[in-house]
């Protein structure tokens, strides 16, 4: 292929116990936006990291402009004109944007930084990608999206011809993602080749020319996005058809009110938020990041204080001053950041699962280990957790299975009101479908669920009703029948 900028020939990468990539071959054309898709564990990030010089392939070769190349470090890749944009900490948060952009090659004169010169150059780099940020600003003040754009500015500023995007949008709001997409479109117009590693189908259909699919480390196929459908891609990813990719929740008649939030206010975060959660109901909470969705959930759960408002659980007014109060009242929160807020990665699966239930599992002062194991075994079966055993380290599980355990914590504690904050973030397609089915099942069994999600299809398919927040206020409520993507987007963005 004469117009291929990058070719993979039998790329193989092994890690102890796993073959992440097994003899993968395909090519990327000059100037295209090429998506790499696959479930978690399919090897797509590994491939991205090999291109970016973070990993080195064990076998096979990579050709850049027809010439074989092998990078031993991201620096070598960068010198060859390949940059990688990812979510892991790429910058020093305590330094300014400019200092970060020039890290490792700070302009200096006899050891002192030439600050003015550096800031000017940094501003030019930011301007080049249409970012209007003050280069003197401290990195820590940027949002994830802005930080990624600075990474892009850096890549472009260093003359990158190929940019690898490793799941860039997984923690961005719709608005932020749009900014990123606009920038990507600009880059494509400038002839930059892009490799886009992502889970998100919609983005890929919109942004990319072609999509290559990996499954279990093997190359499956490459499709033209204009000639394929979401269903076809999913089918290739999981190797079977899933009619239940996004099951629609069978909304039953809601039961008694389990939780009622009246005029909740926390100044500066949200104001005058009222909502009612009934047994058997999934109440969707939509909004852009920063609209106050997580903040409301955190206040209900007793993590953050609120300034005004009343909370009733099963008709009784309660004051939840700590997560423990909330848990005792039967409320569980699945927080948005699984690794930071939900799991103790140093502990094993059963210990994570039983953590909120230890008071129930103890006999005198000691933990009843047999009861603990029984509890874990039970929920492993019910939630179909795929792990070597209840004693295996939770850090070794896939995102989907970790999420199941984070959810099982509250089921084991018999919480009736579940606040789910982005329950399918960072989990693969198969696990996502399973979690959706589980949420559905829980509602059917009489739990009351508050579902916070940035993915509109998820909200639309699962929710009985959807409340929309914007700027910390409730701006609308849609029944399942009236809700659609367009209406939600308009409400979320504050367009009437």
């Amino acid at each position, binding site marked *: 292929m004469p117009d291929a900028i990058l070719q993979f020939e039998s790329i193989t990468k092994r890690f102890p116990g796993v073959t992440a990539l097994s003899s993968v071959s395909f090519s990327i054309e000059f100037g295209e936006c090429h998506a790499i898709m696959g479930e978690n564990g399919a090897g797509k990030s590994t491939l991205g990291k090999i291109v970016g010089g973070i990993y080195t392939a064990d076998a096979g070769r990579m050709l850049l402009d027809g010439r074989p190349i092998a990078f031993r470090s991201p620096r070598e890749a960068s010198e060859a004109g390949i940059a990688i944009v990812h979510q892991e900490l790429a910058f020093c948060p305590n330094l300014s944007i400019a200092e970060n952009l020039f890290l490792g090659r700070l302009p200096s004169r006899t050891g002192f930084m030439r600050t003015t010169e550096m800031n000017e150059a940094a501003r030019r780099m930011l301007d080049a990608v249409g970012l209007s940020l003050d280069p003197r600003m401290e990195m820590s003040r940027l949002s994830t999206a802005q930080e990624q754009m600075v990474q892009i500015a850096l890549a472009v500023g260093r003359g990158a011809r190929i940019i690898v995007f490793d799941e860039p949008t997984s923690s961005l709001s719709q608005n932020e993602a749009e900014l990123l997409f606009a920038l990507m479109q600009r880059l494509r117009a400038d002839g930059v080749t892009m490799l886009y590693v992502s889970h998100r189908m919609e983005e890929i259909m919109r942004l990319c020319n072609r999509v290559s699919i990996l499954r279990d480390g093997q190359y499956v196929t490459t499709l033209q996005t204009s000639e394929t459908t979401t269903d076809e891609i999913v089918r290739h990813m999981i190797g079977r058809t899933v009619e239940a990719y996004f099951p629609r929740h069978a909304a039953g008649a809601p039961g008694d009110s389990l939780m009622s939030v009246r005029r909740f206010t926390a100044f500066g975060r949200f104001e005058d938020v009222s909502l009612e959660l009934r047994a058997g109901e999934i109440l969707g909470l939509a909004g852009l990041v920063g609209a106050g969705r997580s903040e409301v959930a955190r206040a209900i759960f007793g993590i953050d204080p609120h300034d005004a408002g009343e909370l009733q659980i099963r008709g009784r007014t309660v004051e939840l001053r700590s997560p423990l109060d909330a848990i005792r009242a039967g409320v569980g*929160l699945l927080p948005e950041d699984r690794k930071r807020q939900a799991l103790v990665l140093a502990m094993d699966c059963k210990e994570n699962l039983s953590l909120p239930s230890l008071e129930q599992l103890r006999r005198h002062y000691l933990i009843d280990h047999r009861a603990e194991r029984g509890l874990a075994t039970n929920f492993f079966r019910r939630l179909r957790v795929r792990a070597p055993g209840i004693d295996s380290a939770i850090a070794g599980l896939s995102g989907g299975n970790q999420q199941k355990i984070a959810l099982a914590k509250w089921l084991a504690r018999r919480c009736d009101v579940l606040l789910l904050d982005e329950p399918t973030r960072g989990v693969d397609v198969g696990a996502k479908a399973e979690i959706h089915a589980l949420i559905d099942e829980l509602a059917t069994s009489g739990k009351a669920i508050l579902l916070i999600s940035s993915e509109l299809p998820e909200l639309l398919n699962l929710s009985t009703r959807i409340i929309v927040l914007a700027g910390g206020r409730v701006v609308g409520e849609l029944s399942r029948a009236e809700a659609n993507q367009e209406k939600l987007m308009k409400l979320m963005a504050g367009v009437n």
Partner: protein
Amino acid sequence: MATDSIARILRAKEAGLVVVVIVLYALLAGFGGSVERDGVSVNTFLQSANQDLLFKETAYWAIMAIGATLVIISGGIDLSIGSIYCLSAVVGAMFFQHFGPTGGGAGASGVWVLPVGVVVCLGTGAICGLLNGVMITALRVHPFIITLGTMAIYRGLAFVMTGGQTIRNFPTALTHEFIGVNISGLYPVPAIVMVLSVIVAAILMRNSVGGRYVYAIGGNETASLYSGVRVNRVKIGVFTISGLCGGLAALILLGDYGSANSNTGTGYELNVIAASVVGGASLSGGRGTAFGAFLGALIIKLIEKAIVIFQINQEYSRIIIGVVVICAVVLDRVSANLVERRMTRAGRET
């Protein structure tokens, strides 16, 4: 069944430490020479009197290392442990001196002097620890800073109370009938107290709800809070236990040596933290065991003994112990890295 439990023991975290202890024992027994006793030749190092002394000396560090390990597992650090030990010893000493043969309360009945004295000594330690915990949680200041401050404060208090004088002359009920009781030439009580402490701590850390919470908080404080763990209460408890361990070690000192002053236990915090770390406690929290703390203390003590036996200049002992601590942490880091890498690759690879 038998092979199964042996396999489990070999896989345990402490297996490496046990091997180190065995190697040190072999070296010390092999190179320590022998002495003539009652016409029989006995190995100098292995003879009962020497082993008794070894375990008695280890007891101080091991008991305090249990508390320090607990603090370290919870993600904190207790620099004031040496000073708590000193203040508890001084307060206990003043009490026992008052009721000792030369004190103003000499006539008091031994029946209540001993138990009250024990409570005074342990209570002082526990209160010091409690204060540490309360300040750390209420003021939200890192334990390093708070205990750095109380390290100076508690020792300063000990100095002010004693005026720099050494306090001695305790009731024989303490020094000859309890802690310092002599059973056919051996002084076994400190070692017994240590063994009991290790067993109780090991059971509580492995099997109690509070123990599990300590590991959870050290592993991920936010997730623990979100799971309904009363994080502050657990932290205060952990520091209180650490103080209590200091008080217990102080009690043994009073019964064993029969004196205390404001210089007692200077620099012990380093030995104690070193013992915890050598014993496998991770300063990033979430990992460590009571048995490990004991083995860590024993290893450091054995190294000290080896320095004597191999006639290395005493001045080198600090250097050697420092090197051992760093090596232990580096080895720990390397193995943790390996485990982590294996996990990341197995689990999160995409």
